[in-house]
């Protein structure tokens, strides 16, 4: 399962919480409103009911009210407020004008206890109505009694309409509240995650090589993470440096020992005995081979195994000048006329020691085989620089040219090299997504074209 982003997770959790809280709040508020309105309704109706009871004028021969109830809804047909009084013995019944010709019928179980009971009935229009019922016994002046069932009802249509309106208003309000809260949650999450975004930027800067460590300007909550990452980077750098130093020291030690063996072989050869000379040659060849292997591995261990996201800014002219300066001091290099035509604003996206190693190998090779001149120039091809190194030596056959770069293949069988230099150069070019091209130069010798990525401005 693909992991979701932290931002999305936090927002989903916030949104769910907001939705749930508002849903519960909505239901609670609607319920409270409904209960409150219904309670008030019942309270008002109870007052009207009490008023009705107080207005009852019951005599042995008649049943009436002293005065009509004040609320005009009782007088208006289907006005929404209704009352009905029934003598259970004589079945004499009086009712409000609003009842028109309808009657309420109620079961005895709501009346037998003589208490005021609340129930729901359908009003004359068939709408549910809140209804108060009570059976009361009136003692008349002549000592007789009349038992009356008193019913008062109020149409709930208005209540339902008010309730529905309230709920729809409430839902709309809660919807906008949810929107505002969600937006606030998004802003809060963005602010909360801002330090992580900054860390991401700094990590990218480390990858690109523009900085080496994360900065210290972060909130205290993330500083332990920053310290750990920086410590990890320190340890990694130390480990690589330590490993390289150890490899270098090991190679140095071994090569010194091999030099001693070579010296001994030379001494044996001086004895001028055929058999011992042969042994000396074998020792010398073996020590040379071993030295070449050590050299190859050591140089490989020093190549920068960088991430593709790293960016390097190595000056082409500076590195080529360093190499030619060193080579001019050698017996091969001092006789050569160096023709450099390099753009001084050209930077190559390769770690500088690797660029130096690559160009050093190729240019030194050219200095060995050049007659008396080497030409180094550059061209631009899209985002790449093509470095062209030509000599005016004898050049190579097509077969020799196609074998160049393979490990152990030398440019010439009489050469003192081992072919490992070119193999290293090929690995550097490959590691940096570059290209090698060998051909015969019009100047007579070998033409080497190295295509390498340029550093973008």
């Amino acid at each position, binding site marked *: 399962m693909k992991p979701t982003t932290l931002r999305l997770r936090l927002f989903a959790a916030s949104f769910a919480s907001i939705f749930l809280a508002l849903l519960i709040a909505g239901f609670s508020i609607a319920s409270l409103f409904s209960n409150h309105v219904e309670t008030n309704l019942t309270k008002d109706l109870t007052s009207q009911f009490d008023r009705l009871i107080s207005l009852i004028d019951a005599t042995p021969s008649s049943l009436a009210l002293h005065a009509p109830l004040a609320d005009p809804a009782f007088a208006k047909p289907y006005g929404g407020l209704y009352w009905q009084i029934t003598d259970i013995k004589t079945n004499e019944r009086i009712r409000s004008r609003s009842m028109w010709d309808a009657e309420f019928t109620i079961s005895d179980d709501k009346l037998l206890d003589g208490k005021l009971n609340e129930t729901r009935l359908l009003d004359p229009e068939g709408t549910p109505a809140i209804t108060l019922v009570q059976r009361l016994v009136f003692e008349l002046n002549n000592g007789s009694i009349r038992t009356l069932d008193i019913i008062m009802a109020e149409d709930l249509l208005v209540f339902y309409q008010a309730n529905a309106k309230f709920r729809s208003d409430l839902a709309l309000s809660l919807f906008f509240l949810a929107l505002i809260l969600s937006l606030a949650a998004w802003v809060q999450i963005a602010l909360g995650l801002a330090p992580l975004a900054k860390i991401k930027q700094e990590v990218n800067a480390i990858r690109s090589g523009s900085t080496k460590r994360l900065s210290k300007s972060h909130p205290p909550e993330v500083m332990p993470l920053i310290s750990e990452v920086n410590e990890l980077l320190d340890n990694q750098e130390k480990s690589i440096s330590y490993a390289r130093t150890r490899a270098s020291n090991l190679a140095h030690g071994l090569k010194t020992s091999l030099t001693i063996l070579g010296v001994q072989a030379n001494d044996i050869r001086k004895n001028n005995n055929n058999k011992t000379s042969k042994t000396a040659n074998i020792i010398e060849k073996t020590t040379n081979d071993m030295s070449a292997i050590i*050299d190859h591995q050591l*140089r490989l261990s020093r190549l920068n195994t960088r991430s593709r996201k790293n960016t390097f800014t190595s000056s082409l002219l500076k590195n080529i000048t360093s190499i030619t300066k060193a080579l001019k001091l*050698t017996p091969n290099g001092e006789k050569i006329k160096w023709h450099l035509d390099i753009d001084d604003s050209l930077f190559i996206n390769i770690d500088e020691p690797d660029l130096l190693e690559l160009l050093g190998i190729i240019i030194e090779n050219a200095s060995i085989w050049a007659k008396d001149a080497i030409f180094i120039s550059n061209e631009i091809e899209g985002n790449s620089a093509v470095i062209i190194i030509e000599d005016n030596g004898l050049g190579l056959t097509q077969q020799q040219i196609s074998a160049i770069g393979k490990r152990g293949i030398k440019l010439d069988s009489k050469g003192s090299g081992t072919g490992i230099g070119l193999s290293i150069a090929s690995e550097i070019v490959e590691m940096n997504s570059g290209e090698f091209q060998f051909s015969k130069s019009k100047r007579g010798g070998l033409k080497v074209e190295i295509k390498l990525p340029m550093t973008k401005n």
Partner: protein
Amino acid sequence: MRILLVEDDLIIAKNIISALEIAGFIVEHEQDGEEGWFTGENEKFDAIILDLGLPVLDGLTILKRWRKANCNTPVLILTARGNWDERVEGIDAGADDYLTKPYRVEELVARIRALIRRSTGHANPVIEVGEIILDTRLMRISKAGQPINLTPQEYKLTSFLMHHKDRVIDQMELTEHLYTQDFERDSNSIEVLVGRVRRKLGTNSIQTKRGFGYIMSSEK
């Protein structure tokens, strides 16, 4: 020609000393960095062979100290570390050449000869003074096209004067560059040696500047 060799490994040092002595050089050897630095800074040499991995003081530090103290003797670095960045670092620190181990001793000798020749301002391996020609690669001296048979000491004297042609060299300097330190300085060996060379190369081949020293010059 006097060479300082700073190398801690005795077998390698012995081999180099032997090869250089056969090639006509006087070699002083120091085993550790501290001694090498002191000797290189306080005595005159025509070239120095410096190993980088030395006990007490590493080669690169010594080289930087020499250059800081205006000691401009040409230095050939001898090291097992053959990477180009280390090579450039060595050259930038003031080295004049760089040879990686394992090396062929013949190449080392050739490099030293080239180094001394370059340091005395000669771009060509063949140095000419009038009819006398010195081929530094072959260690051969000829006059008017005829090879001259010289003893090692005679060759050293002629070679040194030809490398510094047109410059008056006093006896003290000649002694320092032609003999080991334990040589008896008051003896008249230089005069005797000059006389022998004159007999082989011609009376005017080496001129005496009274009170100053000797000179080989094309101008008579």
